[in-house]
């Protein structure tokens, strides 16, 4: 096993040759499995030399020989330094401890922030669709915040939609660190709007990727292999919203073959974005209504694991939202409009039809309810605020 010397926090991440050569090996374009074979018995520098000479056991036909150029080492070193990325070789000190023994663990990880922050903590992956509904985004963000507050590391994929909502929730709670797993290189991550989120994550947790910095492109299979890392890192995988054939199901599959518990948030049977999650529930996934459900599931999962700190649920966070004490609407008309609202977003037209008032009266009542925080408008759709 290689004892890499990249700590993770240092501004000069690539001090030792092992890390430099490991990074260069990752640039050869081999799949994750082949890359592990390259590094199985040899150190990075030896493996590099053996490949260059065409003598590596894992490359009997010398396919990679032509690709081994010493300029590549300097090139990737510079790219890593430019984007402040440290190179973590499997088993080195900064490498996430619980990932080392996974049968598909990445041989090399490129990390921003401190990837070892998740050692010794319970971890939950929150995954889901990119085209989420306001319902899904809200639940993901609540789960992210609730879990982070309870000291759970939230792992997600930095994609748009559910991933972003979960991460934003977790970061907003200022609780446990959070971990992002990219499916692209650090400096070419898509979409660009995620760059800010990635920066925040790196300062309060870590962002890791298997793809060396400076590698362009984002083929679909990168995201599929990324999903196995999320599954391998998690004690529980929570699917928030997912279409019938959504990409999040790759994570579910990877979790299932590792024996990681899968939970799903139920959704409306009419919503296409919940078709995948509802199907998971039918197949026996644990239902998740709130943070409390995830925490009880987590409790069972980590009971047998030594050295994992127990989550600290906030007082009352496991309970269902309290009924009773419902606030009064500002006036009788507003009360009528409030009765016409529910948690599913509705267009103004629908609200008008449901409550049978004129457009002007309904609009006024909705504005009053919005001021009293009893109604919210998101993207032009009205609903009740989440309790």
């Amino acid at each position, binding site marked *: 096993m290689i004892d890499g010397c990249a700590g993770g926090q240092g501004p000069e991440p690539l001090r030792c040759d092992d890390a430099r050569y490991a990074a260069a090996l990752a640039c050869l374009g081999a799949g994750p499995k082949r890359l592990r074979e390259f590094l199985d018995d040899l150190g990075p520098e030896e493996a590099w030399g053996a490949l260059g000479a065409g003598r590596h056991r894992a490359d009997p036909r010398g396919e990679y020989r032509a690709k081994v150029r010493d300029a590549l080492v300097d090139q990737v070193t510079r790219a890593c330094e430019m984007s402040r990325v440290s190179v973590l070789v499997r088993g080195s000190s900064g490498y996430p401890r619980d990932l080392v023994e996974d049968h598909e663990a990445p041989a090399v990880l490129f990390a921003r922030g401190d990837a070892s922050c998740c050692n010794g903590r319970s971890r939950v992956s929150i995954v889901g669709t990119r085209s989420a509904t306001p319902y899904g985004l809200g639940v993901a963000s609540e789960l992210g915040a609730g879990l982070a507050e309870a000291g759970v590391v939230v792992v997600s994929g930095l994609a748009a939609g559910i991933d972003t909502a979960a991460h934003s929730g977790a970061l907003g709670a200022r609780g446990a660190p959070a971990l992002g797993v990219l499916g692209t290189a650090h400096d070419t991550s898509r979409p660009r709007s995620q760059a800010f989120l990635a920066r925040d994550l790196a300062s309060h947790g870590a962002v890791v990727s298997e793809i060396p910095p400076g590698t362009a492109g984002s083929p679909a299979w990168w995201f599929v292999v990324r999903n196995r890392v999320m599954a391998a890192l998690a004690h529980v995988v929570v699917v928030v919203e997912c279409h019938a054939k959504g990409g999040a199901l790759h994570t579910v599959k990877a979790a299932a073959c590792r024996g990681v518990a899968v939970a799903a948030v139920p959704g409306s049977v009419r919503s296409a974005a919940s078709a995948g999650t509802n199907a998971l529930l039918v197949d026996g996934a644990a239902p998740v209504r709130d943070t409390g459900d995830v925490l009880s599931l987590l409790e069972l999962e980590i009971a047998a694991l030594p050295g994992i700190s127990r989550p600290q649920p906030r007082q009352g966070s496991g309970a269902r939202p309290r009924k009773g004490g419902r606030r009064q609407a500002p006036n009788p008309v507003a009360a009528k409009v409030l009765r016409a609202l529910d948690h599913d977003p509705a*267009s103004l037209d629908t609200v008008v039809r449901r409550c049978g008032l004129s457009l002007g009266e309904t609009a006024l009542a909705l504005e009053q309810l919005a001021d009293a925080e009893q109604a919210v408008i998101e993207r032009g759709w009205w609903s009740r605020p989440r309790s």
Partner: protein
Amino acid sequence: MIASISSAILHGVEGRPVSVEVHASEQGLPGFMIVGLPDAAVRESRDRVRAALLSSGFEWPQRRMTVNLAPSGIKKGGVWLDLPMAVGVLVASEQLPVRCANGKAFVGELGLDGALRQVPGIVPLAAVLSDRDVVVPSSCAAEAALVAGGKIRAASGLAELVEALQERTPWDKVVHGERAAPLPQLDLSDVRGQLAGRRALEVAAAGEHHLLLVGPPGSGKTMLATRLPGLLPPLGPKEALEVMQAWSAAGLRVPGGGFPERPPFRAPHHGATEVALVGGGTAWLRPGEVSLSHCGVLFLDELGEFPATVLDSLRQPLEEGVVHVSRARSSADLPARFLLIGAMNPCPCGEGSVAGACRCSDRDRARYTRRLSGPLLDRFDLAVSLSRPDVEDLVTGSPGEPSEAAAERVSFARLEAAARGVRCNSELPMSSLEELVPLTPEAAALLERRLRSGVLSARGFHRLRRVARTIADLDRAGPVVGERQVAESLSLREARATLLVEART
């Protein structure tokens, strides 16, 4: 001998007088030359004029003929000058006495058999020549008579025309243009449900606030938009003339013939180019769709499919009501005061407003909404989300309110606006908003809260007050604008949020 014949050519939506001078000389080789910056179409008229004269039984003079088109500095295009050239040749070759052409102007295209053919732009041409008798082809005499009254002389062929000029036979009878027979209008009672959409349409018609409809396919965007002309007040005589001019200049006939009664409605396909939309072109500066919808409605369906540059070319006409079309050789001001209705899907697949049904990637969605630049989006005072109507509404629902009732409220609101000295509330000057749109304390407080929370920008604030004024006028709520009207105006622009959020990702 020299003949000088009055005529005119089209430039934008206006006529420009042109004098066609023909000189017949005994000296030099026989021939026919046109000078004075003719374009290809005008040069071709030499052959048409020659054939038309010969087949109408006249002689083609065996002299050197020089035609000059004065003023010679401007380029002349189009087919209007065939007839004046033929008359000029007849006068110069002394086959027609000079006095017959005096005090008259001629406009028309010739066929090889001497027939007079219809030409585009007869309305502005007749208007500019109306200080004399204008001889035009019979087929467009009725249109010309709308602006030049009894001074129109019509003929259907060159031979008859010469006879009539010499007062041997009477001119063709000109049917004096009347107002067009009202065409059947689409009625709002066909629209089931869609309360917000109907209301937005009414507010748009009353205050001429530009309206954006956002909704999935099948939610009735086009259905609503096509019913807007039925809500607008009928055209006044001045407006009808302006519409006639623009349509005639584009070579189009107003549906029904005669003066248009209803505001025009234009719905160009999203493949339209910038020139097709704002006007331009090489032959003469042809008015575009914005000018054809002058005093009426321009409906842009599938707004997200129009190229961004084409949409942005609308910004200036929307602001000023006029398009300045400038080309290297010439420029023209074309009228373009129209009510803009845009319709678009919430995202490329169109299902974005149904929970979870949309599978567009963020990039596709951003690209789709980015077509609509911020400044153009700002011009839409009203933006409404539509959803597909309920099945019950379609099957058993009672018909909606007819257009007539809504049109009545609209015309009342227009009267209120006229009392403030403007045509409609969207034209209220910023300086008098405080005075003309007084707010109740509750309404002011509501607006202040929305301004503070960033829902409303400073520009949006002023636009919203005009909309609130229109709503108060429609409701006959009196001079002071209340909280309800303000809340309604806020609700009628909520779809903006959908597009703005998408555009930012």
